[in-house]
Structures are given as C-alpha cells and as structure tokens.
C-alpha cells in the first residue's frame, strides 16, 4: 500500500475512528455552525458509523449528541499555494478525503461541495443507493442544465472527456461525487507525480475510465456557485483546460485505443428546467475574437494548420449576425491546442492565452445558435458538438502520433 499523503494530525485522527460505513468529506472551507446544523438534520438517516470530515479545527465535535451515528472530524489540508484557484483547492481536498476513506476503511466515500447544498438525507440516500445497490464505483452528479452556464465544461471538458475516454459524463470535473472503497483508493493515489497541495486537478471520471470502474450519474436539483470574479479567462483556461490536456498526455496510451463512447447509467428525476431569460449580447464576444484574429495570427499559425487558419480568416469577415463557428473547426482547434500543449510548441501560459479569443468565438457562435432554443434544444446542440469531437478523434490520433508528418 502506498504511503499516505495525509497530514500527520489527520492520519492519527483517522486511525482512531473505528469501523466506518460512510465518510462524507466537505471539500472546502465551511462554516462550522452551519455544518453542525446541517448534520443534525441528517439524524433521520438510517445508517451507522458515519464520519463527516471537514477542513478546520475541532470545535464542532462536542456539539453532537453522544448516541448520534454521525461523528464530525476535522482534517487538515496540505499547505497549498494561496494563489490556487477554487477548483484546485477543492481537488486537493477531494484527494485528501479519498485518502482518509482509505485509511479509515470506509465502504463508501462522498466528497461534497463546501456550500453544503448536497448534504441532506435525500441526496445521501441517492448516492448510497447508486453505490451500494447498483454497484457503481463512481457516482457523478448531473446538475440542472442552463443554456449559458458551464460553457467551458460544455465546449471542451465534457465532450473531450467523452471522445477520449469513451464515457458520456456531463460533468467530468465536479465538486460533488460519491465513490466505492476501491475507487477511493484509486483517487487517493491518482497523481503520484504531483506534490501534495500543488493544485493538480482531480478527474474522477478519467481515473475510473483508466481503471475500468463502473461510472454512474445522478441527477441533482441543485446549483453551486463558483467564485470566478476577478479571474481572467486565460487563467481559468490554463487551469482547467491545461489540466485536461495534461491528463491527455499521461493517459495517451489508453485513449488512443478507445474508438467510441458509451452511455453512462443515469439515475434520479429530471431536474427543474431553468429559464435563461433574454438572449446574451454576442457583440463583445465577436469583437474579442476579431481582435485575436487581427493580432494573434503569428501565434495561431504555430499551433493550427493552414486549413483551420483559412476557416478562421473566413469567419472574421462574415457579418456578426451570421457569425458561426462550425463544430469541426472548433473541435480541431481544441485538438491542435492539445497537441501543441504536449509538444510545448510555445510557453503553455501563452498557448492557453491564445486559445481564449477562439473560445470566445465559439461562445459567440453557440450563444447565437441557441438564443431561440429551449434548454433541451441547447442540450441537443451540445450533443451534436460532442459527436463532432468523437468523429474528429482520428484526426487527433493521427496528429498525436505523427505531429510532423500529418499536418493537413
């Protein structure tokens, strides 16, 4: 068994818990009083030996009744860089929670968002049913769809994961997930080349695919807010898309063998359909794309083949009202940037910065297309994009294997 990365204090705490059926870990800073209240509301839950782990000091523990099946346990996170982005901190916490589950020998492990929206009896039972009764190793949530939310996930992360690893997962990078003991062991040991607290993201769905574990999805009727105010788009791209590209590098031998995707079993009721209100103004997005097109040609030409550059040139000349980025062009752009990331064609920060105007171009095109559609219609549009990712995968494989020879 590999040596645990847990902090010494947390490690000694986990060794004194006794048998644990369920470990619920809160992956982020949480208000102690709020957590205590929320846990007390869970007392109706018919389970035994439940540990609720949260990052912080141990002042809450005494407040729970002695006969309670629940036990609150603080844990300490590895000293992380303060400049880390919210999801990087959450990933560090998720990895720690999985390591704790392994140390405790917990049968089921849940890692939940620190806003505690998922911490209620109904959601817990749904997660437990999926893992204990339906035999899922990893349960990922499906949040209610909104047309103009999670665009980075819909445009790159989810379809890329689907095309590469063959799993149709809606949210591959998620703040909530549940997993079995064996999946927790895999996740706690998933990034041996990363130092603890270095901000490397945890991709549970990719790890499950690599280990051939059963993945399920659970529809949750909740929305989490991620604080991205003040963060530049290129920083977000560097962190999220850069991490996805990094995973591509390490798992290249696996995903090159995958030919098609398969549906993922999804449980739970269809959530509420959110109304997205007025259509968004795409002009600033198109302007950003055009500015990039005017100034970043020399940078893009290092990454993109002439055919794509020509398509981009054509797009920059059309009327803003009919501005569209064809799926094939966008997918090939993402694949070419993934290849450039791997080959280090240029500094990776620069590379992700150069992707930002192209991404905004895609957002403008998508927003224009789905403006008059219902959320369901927008989902169908995204399904079409995901299929384009799969159809163009041979292009990626060819370029990945022969980057110099295959350059259309």
């Amino acid at each position: 068994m590999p040596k645990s990365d847990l902090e010494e204090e947390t490690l000694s705490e986990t060794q004194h818990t006794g048998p644990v059926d369920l470990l619920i870990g809160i992956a982020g800073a949480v208000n102690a009083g709020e957590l205590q209240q929320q846990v007390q509301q869970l007392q109706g839950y018919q389970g035994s030996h439940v540990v609720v782990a949260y990052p912080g000091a141990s002042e809450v523990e005494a407040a729970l009744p002695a006969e309670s099946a629940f036990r609150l346990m603080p844990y300490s996170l590895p000293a992380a860089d303060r400049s880390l982005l919210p999801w990087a901190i959450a990933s560090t916490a998720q990895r720690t929670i999985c390591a704790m589950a392994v140390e405790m020998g917990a049968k089921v492990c849940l890692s939940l968002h620190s806003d505690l929206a998922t911490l209620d009896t109904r959601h817990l039972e749904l997660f437990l049913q999926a893992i204990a009764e339906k035999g899922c190793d990893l349960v990922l949530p499906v949040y209610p769809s909104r047309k103009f939310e999670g665009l980075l996930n819909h445009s790159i992360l989810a379809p890329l994961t689907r095309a590469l690893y063959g799993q149709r997962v809606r949210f591959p990078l998620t703040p909530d997930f549940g997993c079995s003991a064996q999946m927790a062991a895999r996740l706690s040991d998933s990034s041996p080349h990363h130092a603890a607290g270095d901000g490397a993201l945890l991709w549970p769905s990719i790890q499950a695919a690599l280990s051939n574990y059963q993945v399920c999805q659970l529809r949750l009727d909740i929305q989490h807010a991620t604080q991205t105010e003040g963060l530049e788009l290129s920083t977000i791209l560097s962190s999220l898309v850069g991490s996805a590209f990094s995973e591509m590098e390490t798992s290249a031998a696996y995903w090159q063998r995958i030919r098609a995707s398969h549906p993922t079993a999804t449980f739970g009721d269809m959530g509420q359909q959110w109304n997205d209100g007025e259509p968004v103004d795409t002009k600033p997005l198109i302007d950003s794309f055009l500015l990039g097109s005017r100034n970043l040609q020399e940078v893009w030409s290092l990454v993109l083949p002439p055919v794509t550059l020509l398509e981009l040139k054509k797009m920059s000349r059309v009327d803003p009202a009919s501005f569209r980025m064809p799926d094939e062009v966008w997918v090939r752009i993402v694949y070419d940037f993934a290849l450039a990331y791997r080959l280090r064609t240029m500094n990776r920060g620069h590379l992700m910065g150069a992707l930002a105007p192209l991404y905004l171009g895609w957002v403008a095109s998508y927003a224009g297309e789905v403006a008059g559609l219902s959320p369901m219609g927008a989902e169908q549009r995204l399904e079409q994009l995901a299929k384009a990712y799969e159809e163009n995968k041979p292009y990626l494989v060819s370029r990945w294997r022969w980057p110099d020879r295959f350059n259309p």
Partner: protein
Amino acid sequence: MWQQIEESLRDSMGRVFTKIATLLPGILAFVLVLLIFLVIAWLAAMLARMVLNAVKFDERTNAGSNTLTEWAPRQTPTILVTRIVFWSFVVIGVLVGVSTFEAASAESGISAYVFSYLPRVIGAVVLLFLGTVIGRFLSRSVLISAVNLNLQYARLLATGVRWLVFVLTAAMVLDHLAIGGEIVDLAFGILFGGIVLALALAVGLGSRDLVSRSLEKEANRPIEIPVEEKLHHF
C-alpha cells in the same frame, strides 16, 4: 629613375611574399587544428545526442513545468545541449588554432590579445541570446495579455516591448565588447529618456483633457449596481 621604381616594387613584392611564406605555416596549422576540432565537435555532438536520447533527456526535462523549452520552445533540450557541445569544441578549436598559428608563424602577442578578449565575446554572445529570448517571450506575453484585455493597440504594445528589450540588449552587448565607448551609453540614454519624455508629454499635454475628463468621471461616478453576468464559463 624607372629602374629604381622597378627595384623598389620588386623589393616590396619580395617582402610581401616573404611575409606570406612566414604566415603560411601558421595559417595551415590554424586551418588543420580547426578541421580536427570540427571533426571532434561533430563526433562529440553525435555522442551527446545518442546518450541523451538513450536516457530520454527530452521526456525527463519536459516533466517539469518551467523548463528551458518554455523559453526557447522551438528547440528540444537535446538539440540545445548537442549544439552547446558542438560549438564549445569549435570555440576550443579556434583558441588552440590561434595558439598554433602564433607558434608556427613567429607572430607574437596574437593569442594573448584573443585570449584576453574572449571572455567579453562569450559574455556578449550570452547577453545577445538572453536578450533575444527574453524580448520574444515578453513581446508574446504582452501581445496575448493585451488581446485578452481587449486592447486595440495590442500589437503596437508588443512591438514596443520587443524593441525596447532588443535596444537594451544591443546597448549592453556593445558596452560589453567595449565598442563605441561612451557613445553607446549616451545614445541609449538619449533614446530611452526620449521615449519616456515623449510618453510623458503625450499624456501630459496631448491627452490632458482626456485624463482630466476620465478622472472627473471616475470621481463623480454613481455607485453602480452590479449587473448579473449572463454567461458563466465554469
């Protein structure tokens, strides 16, 4: 009279041929040494490449996040190392060749002069390389950041930064080589000071109204009610 001129020219020609004859063994020795070292350099570079490929040097160096390739991205680390090995041997060959030339041609003082100037040349080459790499890197950083900030004059800004670094590098290289003396310092001071002064005047005089209007607007701006962003990337 004509005979004297002819005699004098013949004497001069004789001296020239004597000088060439004296230098020829030295030149031949220099060329021979240089050729030998070129062969050695080529063999050493090939050996270095084979060893580095065998130990998967590129993969190992690419495993870290801040590698040399981040700064000089078009070259793989193996190519960079093999080139350094090759050119090191060539430089050693030139130095040995100069010494041989001096020994074979009875021309004294050449190698002493070359050897004393060599550290300056090496320093200048390093400065030039670093200046070029940093200039290109900063220029691209500025260009991409400015585009992402929606600045219309992004390219102008990037070009300005690149040339500023190049001019600074050129001044440092010339200063290091002791070429131009005070003129380079003075010219650079005037150029750099001129740019700063021009910018100060542009803001102070040309854009005075614009600056005052923008400050006034900032001071009188009512408290804005934040508008909910409709697009969420993550």
